[in-house]
């Protein structure tokens, strides 16, 4: 089949099914919505029947899931616990990260918790902001095996910590509210804190809903000390939590094990009995638990209460091999639970099977990579975006040579005028010689796809070592410290063995 390959129905339609699951549980749709869902299901069923899938069909199917996911889930946003806010502050339910605190202009809030690195630790502890206006000029030596005291790239234009992460200053007459407190900065000014954590915005965020400064995703063993979006508590019962994943905000138990719903259940009624219970464990509530928000408690059998989300009873899957797994959704009619779905990739992208799981591919099923970078200064600034020095990226993608870089790791070119329809995916003009932003009229500028306002790439490689077939992920972990400090990481939508599809780490010793 000239290099193309067949994907299982689950790979192609899994996304749509996740979306449909959330849609179906509500039971609150208009006739038009139900009709649209019916049509979509028929379309999907027909497509399933004709799935002797070629690449073109895969692309079409991705379009179908995109269609199914949009509209049906667009109205479902994560609920959160309301609490008093300081004047002007707000909560914005963002597309990938869910509800995030923001200022009056809609700029997302972040915090910077301390983390231990190889040769020391960086970040902040509660109540003590350290991100100041002095420009760090040298490495801190956190990144073994390299020593401290080496001049950073583009040091004359390097922003200070507080320029890259503007503090959320408090006025002199500001008053603490609930978990919102006011802390003293080293420069004598006042700064807002939430739950003790000093708050910042990001110079990368331009409009409400942007969360480009940091993500809950991509925090792995060797990444630098990153910032996190500051969010209100999701409105879930205490035994649950919500994780940001590439597919959406995934509901998990407090210990991060996934939960599922079953199509065979009724509204607040479980039909999983007998043999069904061999593989699925109802998530029971305490006898004293009460329904809250989208969560309800129903009596499964006399005296035994079970949780339901949006009317659908909740279970654990006994066969899950890791936390935040999607394994249970492989079983027909069972679904992971999301509070909201993430925006789908733009049309033309594909979802494909690789050695490590489901990974995003371009139209030719070449793995799509993002570039990850954090510098080794005391303030741990990100160097993974086109406004940062490109010397780091050029070193690993082309031995310091931009021309080699673009041959080995070509940008994913977007059609002129392409729109993603969301803030997670987008396009940007790049000067490939510098790796920096460019205007559309600059000679040689490339219009490239972006994920979280950062270009994405494929891996052509060199000397025969590159991504050739759809299952290849040969640039996964390419770069310093397994690619986590200065390198390339695939856009993984389903990590079979670990958790590169989410922002949590798995204890792998089993």
């Amino acid at each position, binding site marked *: 089949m000239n290099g193309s390959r067949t994907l299982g129905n689950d790979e192609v339609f899994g996304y749509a099914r996740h979306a449909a699951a959330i849609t179906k549980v509500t039971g609150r749709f208009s006739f038009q919505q139900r009709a649209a869902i019916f049509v979509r299901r028929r379309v999907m069923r027909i497509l399933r029947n004709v799935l002797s899938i070629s690449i073109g069909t895969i692309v079409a199917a991705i379009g179908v899931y995109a269609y199914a996911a949009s509209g049906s889930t667009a109205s479902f946003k994560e609920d959160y616990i309301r609490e008093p806010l300081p004047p002007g502050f707000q909560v914005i339910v963002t597309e990938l990260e869910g509800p995030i605190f923001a200022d009056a202009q809609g700029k997302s809030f972040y915090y910077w918790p301390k983390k231990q690195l190889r040769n020391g630790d960086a970040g902040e502890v509660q109540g003590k902001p350290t991100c100041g206006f002095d420009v760090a000029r040298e490495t801190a030596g956190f990144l*073994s095996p390299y020593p401290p005291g080496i001049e950073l790239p583009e040091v004359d234009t390097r922003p200070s910590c507080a320029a890259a992460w503007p503090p959320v200053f408090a006025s002199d007459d500001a008053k603490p509210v609930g978990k919102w407190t006011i802390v003293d900065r080293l420069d004598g000014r006042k700064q807002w804190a939430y739950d003790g954590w000093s708050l910042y915005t990001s110079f990368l965020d331009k409009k409400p809903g942007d969360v480009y400064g940091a993500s809950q995703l991509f925090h792995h063993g060797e990444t630098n000390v990153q910032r996190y979006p500051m969010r209100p508590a999701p409105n879930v019962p205490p035994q649950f939590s919500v994780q940001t994943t590439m597919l959406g905000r995934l509901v998990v138990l407090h210990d991060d094990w996934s939960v599922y719903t079953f199509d065979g259940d009724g509204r607040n009624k479980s039909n999983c009995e007998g043999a069904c219970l061999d593989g699925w464990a109802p998530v029971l509530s305490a006898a004293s638990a009460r329904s809250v928000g989208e969560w309800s408690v129903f009596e499964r059998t006399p005296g035994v209460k079970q949780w339901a989300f949006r009317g659908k009873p909740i279970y654990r899957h006994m066969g899950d091999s890791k936390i935040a797994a999607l394994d249970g959704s492989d079983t027909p009619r069972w679904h992971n639970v999301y509070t909201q779905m993430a925006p789908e990739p733009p049309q033309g992208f594909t979802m494909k099977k690789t050695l*490590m799981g489901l990974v995003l591919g371009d139209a030719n099923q070449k793995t799509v990579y993002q570039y990850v970078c954090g510098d080794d200064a005391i303030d741990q600034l990100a160097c993974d975006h086109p406004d940062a020095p490109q010397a780091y990226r050029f070193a690993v993608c082309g031995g*310091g040579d931009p021309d080699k870089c673009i041959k080995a790791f070509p940008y994913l070119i977007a059609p002129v005028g392409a729109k993603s329809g969301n803030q997670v995916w987008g396009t940007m003009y790049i000067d490939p010689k510098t790796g920096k932003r460019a205007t559309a009229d600059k000679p040689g500028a490339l219009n490239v796809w972006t994920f979280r306002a950062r270009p994405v790439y494929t891996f052509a490689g060199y000397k025969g070592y590159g991504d050739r077939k759809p299952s290849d992920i040969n640039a996964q*972990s390419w770069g310093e410290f397994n690619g986590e400090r200065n390198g390339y990481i695939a856009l993984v939508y389903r990590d079979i063995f670990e958790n590169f599809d989410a922002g949590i780490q798995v204890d792998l010793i089993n």
Partner: protein
Amino acid sequence: MKTEHSRVMSRLGLAGLALVVVGGGSAAISADNTAPRDRSIAYAAHEIKLSVYETPDAKEECPQGVNTMGPREAFKALYPQDAGQKWKVVDTQMAREAEIWWPTVGKAEEFPFIEAEGKTAIGVDLDGKTKPSDFTSPEGKPGIDNQLYRVTGCIMNYRRGASIVNSERQKLLAYHFNRLLIELTDVDSLINDDDVTITTYRGLDALLQDAQGAFQAGGSERIDMRWGAKDFVHTGKGRIVNGVLKTDPMDIFVPQEVAFSSGAASTLRGAQFELKVMPDRAEGVIGGYADVESFYRRFNRAWGTHFMSYGQQVPPAVYRSLTRLADGYPDPKTGENTAISASYSVKMVQVLALHPDKKIADAAPASGAAQFAESVASSQADAK
């Protein structure tokens, strides 16, 4: 005095007897009572490491000593911090990383890179010839092809007690990604059978261990026909001679992830297995020609410069040594060898391989408990 062969024979005989008891006499039993049930047996690797022959003081293989100038030492020597000079990241750290990811072939080494010498190495006679560059095995077999040993033999990272060797062992057993599994079929005897089929797979499950951590035979392993089928499944032919499996050359792809989700694996071309096969375990070597690019990239992706520093391993020097000593699979255009003879020492335990049915393999829905239960039930039904 019992020979190794007779020890294996007696063990196989006892195990064969056990199989008869366990199998209730339903399985086809060969004349020597060593035929596995259904003429098939599978093993999962719990240890894979490069074969490095080591003498106690390294005098034989590394008469000049082992390499001492790793990334950390080299950086300190090249960019002294007490000399008053101001160094820049771009000229130092990034220049070093650039050379790691894009090594310059033919460049003179900054510090001497010590390769292994000596006449002895572990491995397989891959080409049936005895050449001047070949080694003799520790047991005295000539013609051993393992030029990769020359590259790695004097790097502490690959020697006994080194952190990377130990870490790789731990990671290999901990990560399901790495679960290399072989299945032998058409087996009439585990002692002598002139025609068996070997297929490599990836397993998806943890290995059975006792309370002491020792690996136990008899665990089940779901075979990954969903994610790794296109890459990890390879079939070849072989024979068992006096309890040792020897296979014909076959290209295989070995999962060797170390860091989280690095997806690292490397290609071994013309791989030949030489394994003592027993009812409960198998051990020996896998010889073959390591694809230079694949081998080098896999190691860099799996390990960072920090880890290379533990064992004084300078990646670009390794790359230049790899390309210089490469001895197989010449590029048809340039004539340059693209692969280097190599050997991995492996230890495996017997497992019950659970094959997904074709529908599951094709449609790929099967990792849920229901399918797993079906698979087990199907396997048990087949066994009855």
